[in-house]
Structure formats: structure tokens, C-alpha cells
């Protein structure tokens, strides 16, 4: 069979197993240098603000930082203080990045406004296509990405952690009940554990 002329895409360096990592920097409008620290402080004080993001269950880690000044190591390092403040955003998630963006812009619309409103050239979260372009325009390539459990996803990790507790309890019970009672206990265990399997 003659093979197709266009070759498939090579695996990218920011993907490890089922997790992708994306890092981006956006240039802040003048008021961002006050607004972003306020957003950070609010998010730290009210963690429930991120409940929607948490609920989407495909983001494992994310961090935001306002970069204004860099640690100085002497020449030939040239710059210590930047002209603008820059918002650093790094996120690790499962699925393709377009799925990530698509889901975020529709479900986290308000959150998206809050975090990106002070970024120059921010087109708004919806429609998705210009926001996707905004994301891509501000992305910095990852050279090497490591994940300790690459084949796992947020839902499998959460399931595994929830399951482990139940499993340990059941194992302890199983050792201490008469053999004849095992099957009924096993079925009861499975009934509650099935959603994690």
C-alpha cells in the first residue's frame, strides 16, 4: 500500500502520557499590576472560587504569577526590572489543548474574564477561536516535561484515592468476618466502589 505523503504529527515535548503542560506569558495593562495581586489574594482567601475549575476534573496543577522583576545574577545578565508586568500562567491538564480551552471558555467564562481581563490583546473568552489564538500567541514552548504518573488522569487519580480508603476498610473487614459472609460484603463494597472502577 502506498503510504500517505503527509506524515503524522510528532509527539510534542510538552506532553507526558495523558497530561499536557502549557505555559504562557501575557503583557499586563497598567492596572494589572494592582489587579492581579488582588485576584491572587482573593483566590487564596476564597478557594471555593475555583470550584468550577476543580469540578471540570481535568486540570491537575495550575499556577499564576505576576512577573515584574527578575533575580539579578550580575553581568552579562542585562535586565532586572521589566518595562511591563507580565502574567505567567502554567497549567497541566488531560486531553488535547483545544479541548481544554473549549471547556474552559464555556464553563469557566467568568473566571476567564477575571484572570485575563488585564492582559493586553485579550479578546474575551468567547467565541472560542479568537481566545485559542490569543492563547497560542502567548505560549512559550516547553523543552522538557516530566510527570510522575503520566498515564493517570485527574479522574483516575481521584478515583484511586477515594477507592483506596474504601478498599482498605473493606480488606480489614474481610479478614475479620466469617468466610460465608464475604460475598454479601463484597457485593456491598462493589456497589459503592463501582463508580471508581
Amino acid at each position, binding site marked *: *500500500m*502506498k*503510504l*500517505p*505523503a*503527509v*506524515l*503524522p504529527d510528532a509527539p510534542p515535548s510538552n506532553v507526558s502520557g*495523558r497530561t499536557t503542560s502549557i505555559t504562557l506569558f501575557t503583557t499586563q495593562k497598567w492596572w494589572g499590576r494592582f489587579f492581579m495581586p488582588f485576584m491572587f489574594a482573593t483566590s487564596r482567601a476564597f478557594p471555593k472560587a475555583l470550584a468550577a475549575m476543580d*469540578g471540570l*476534573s*481535568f486540570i491537575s496543577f495550575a499556577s499564576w504569577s505576576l512577573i515584574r522583576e527578575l533575580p539579578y545574577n550580575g553581568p552579562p545578565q542585562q535586565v532586572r526590572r521589566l518595562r511591563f508586568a507580565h502574567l505567567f500562567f502554567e497549567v497541566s491538564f*488531560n*486531553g*488535547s489543548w*483545544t*479541548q481544554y480551552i*473549549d*471547556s474552559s471558555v*464555556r*464553563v469557566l467564562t467568568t473566571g476567564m474574564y477575571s484572570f485575563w481581563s488585564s492582559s493586553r490583546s485579550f479578546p474575551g473568552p*468567547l*467565541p*472560542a*477561536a*479568537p481566545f485559542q489564538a490569543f492563547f497560542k500567541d502567548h505560549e512559550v514552548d516547553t523543552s522538557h516535561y516530566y510527570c510522575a504518573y503520566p*498515564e493517570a*488522569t485527574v*479522574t*483516575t487519580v481521584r*478515583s484511586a484515592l477515594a477507592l483506596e480508603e474504601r478498599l482498605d476498610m473493606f480488606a480489614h473487614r474481610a479478614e475479620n468476618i466469617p468466610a460465608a459472609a464475604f460475598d454479601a460484603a463484597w*457485593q456491598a463494597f*462493589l*456497589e459503592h466502589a*463501582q*463508580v471508581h*472502577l
Partner: protein
Amino acid sequence: MRPPAAPELELPDIQGDILRAYGNSYDRTSYAFVRVDGEPAQARAWFAGLLDHVTTAQPWRRKPLTTLNVALTASGLAALGLSDEAIGSFSHEFRQGMAARAELLGDTGPSAPSRWEEGLGSGDAHVLLTINAQTTADHRRALGKMQAAMQDAGGVGVLYQQDAELLHGAREHFGFADGFAQPAIGGATEDKTLGGGVPQKDGRWRPLAAGEFILGYPDEDSNVDRRRRLPPAPDGALGRNGTYMVWRKLHQDVVLWRRTIEGAAVRYPYGDARKLGAKVVGRWQDGTPLETHPHGPDPEFEPAARGANDFRYAADRDGRRCPLGAHVRRANPRDALGHAGKLSFRHRMIRRGMPYGPVLPDGVLDDDGAERGLVFVSFQASIFRQFEGVQTPWINDGNIFGLGTDKDFLLGDASGSGKMTIQGKQPFFLAPQQAFVVTRGGEYLFVPGIAGLRAIADGVAG
């Protein structure tokens, strides 16, 4: 933002069978993949000869005996002389072709392109002629005309042909009624809105923007865009009123399916093989949704009736009625992903597939060696978002449903390690995942509008 009224669709310029199905009276179909061997100009002359016979979306006064529709692959556009620049305005995944994206689609192992039938995925399939006919005689006549035209023109020939035929009761080979659940398209098929549209929070439904399926019209994103930008499409006349097409020949191992389900059903605590099969699919064989009728099919169920598909999954978070990983729940999650369907409404496809091969009579558990299966055909404005966006994360994976790496048990890439959980008071497990369905070949194609076909034939985009 209230979406604007649906725009007027230019039906005479849109090819037929996309917005509205031709209907079950056209029960014989041939898919003829044509290869251009000669010069582009010669091929364009033949191509131009087709145009007067192409069936459009205009409503019929009288049903034609046969219909003809034309689609092209990326290499086909090149073979007909389209410039690199013009071809470059088509989507990335279309230009790469389905074979190059096999990993993404789960076409590995027995479904890998290296094992596809001769011609498919090779880059030699240029133009797809889809011929539908009402009777065998009409069918034969249409094929004869097609062959004659090619011979007269020279430089073109049929590379690969697949004939298909509707089965009794519009079922596919595993015995399930298929093809009646379709998206409700604003300005075209609003009759399907109840159950076929976007589920709203208040319990109602709304149709999808036409631009999700036909290029040149506002899509769902356009409707939340202050500037009402249209979705990306090939340049000018090439793109307008066109759409992308996915064509896949899916071999079905009916004996393996029957044996697996019947074998597993022996231990299934809640019913027989029919029920177990329904649990895998998410519908009973007659099409009754499991979600509304978890214990048995509805004898009054009419798949094509208004509201036949009016159901949701939000009240069944545990999958006790319809399993979380059931095929129809994966292929069209409706509100199952939460957030009022926001994560699923932009991943709908129009499906127009047809079964091929002889029926294996009920109850037969021995392979007769015949080839049978489904020609899967879908139409969508974006192959990446709407076809691949279902195939990769929803069919060939389970993460978004909380099912880890479990794949669609009916359809998913079968490397033998998969399972399916049938949720219930006593959960039941089906394992290992089997290769009930194997991809025998496929192509990504574009279906231009009539003006687009003409532009290609006239060589204006060369």
C-alpha cells in the same frame, strides 16, 4: 446573548443528503472512489460533466430515481489542478488525511492503515461519487452511466467501490436500529429539536446553528461573537455551502458480538443477552432509549417520531439506567457532562451511513465468512472538533465520563485490555474489550456547494 434568527440556507447551492436525509426509499447506495490518472485539465472535463447531475438540497417535487453527490479528498483537489494556495485554505486534518491520523483515531492493530483495503488511505482516492437508488435496476443503470462517462472522458477510473444496502427495519448488522438520531439544524431540521438539539436548563431544547454543519453560515461561536465572525472555511466559492465529510468502512464481526454477549449474559444478574446488548449500546434493538425504558423496549416506539429522542442523562448520574460508558451516551452525551451540555453541544455530527454485506440470520453463531459491516458517513463543519472530538476523547477513552481508560465497548479500539462496567446495584463487568468493529479503510473528504464544484471544474482556483 439571544442567538439571532436562523439565516436563510441556500438550498439550491448545497448538495443533498446533508441537511435532510434522502430517506429510506433510497435503499441502495454505491460509494465509488475515483482516481485521476491523467492531466488535471482532462479530469476537470469529466468532472464538469457530472455537475448537471448532482442532487441538491432543494426540496423535490418528485423524487428522482437516483441521486448523485460528489466529494473530494485533499489529493483529489490537487489532481484536479487546484493550486497549493487554494488547497492550503482547507483544514489541516483534511489535508493530512485520515490515514495519517490513525493513532489519534484509534485505528491501530487490525484497524491500522497498513491493513486497509487496497486504495483507501493511499492518497489515490481523489473523487467520491455517492449514488443512491430506489431499485436494483435504477442502481445498475446509474452505475452504468457513471462508468460510461468515465470511459468517454479518459484519464479517470474507479479505484475502489463499496456498495451498501439498507437492512430491514433500518438496522445495522448487530441488530440495532440506526441513523434516526440526528442533530436539529436551525433553518433546516427544526422538527428534530426535541431531543436532537441543545438541551436547555429549563427542560426545553433549541436547534443548533446551521454553521455547525454547513460552511458560510454562523455557527454556535458566531452567535456569541460581537462581530459575528463566520467559522474558518476554504476560500471563497470553494467553501461556501460546502461541508467536510468523514467516510469509514467499518467491518463488523457479528458472530464475535453475538457469542460475547450471549456468553457474558449467562452471568448477568439483571436480564438476558438482549438486555446486556442494550446496556452496551444504550438503546434496545428497536431504538428505544435505555434511559427512558431501562427494563424493556417500548412496543410503541417509533424511532422517527417527533420527540423519540427527547431524553437526558442528568437524572442518571450513576449510570444505573443507561451505563456511563454506553455507546450512545458516549457518542452524544447531551447533558451527561454537566454544565448544561456546554461541553458537548459543539461536537455533533450529521450521520448518513449505510450497512453493507448480507444479513447473518438471527441466532447464527458460526461465521459464514461473508464481509459485512457499516459504511460510516458523517458531515460536519469541522472534522477535528466534531468527528475527531468525539472519536478520540469520547469513544476511545473514558476519562471525561469518570471511566479512566475504558473505551466504547461496542466500537473502541480493541487492544484486548479494555473493560466496560455496567452500573447497577450489583455492577457487572464485560472484559476484555473485543474487536467487534475493525476499520477497513477511510477518507476525509470535502463536499463543495454547487458553485464550488463549478469553480473546481472551471479550474479558476488553479
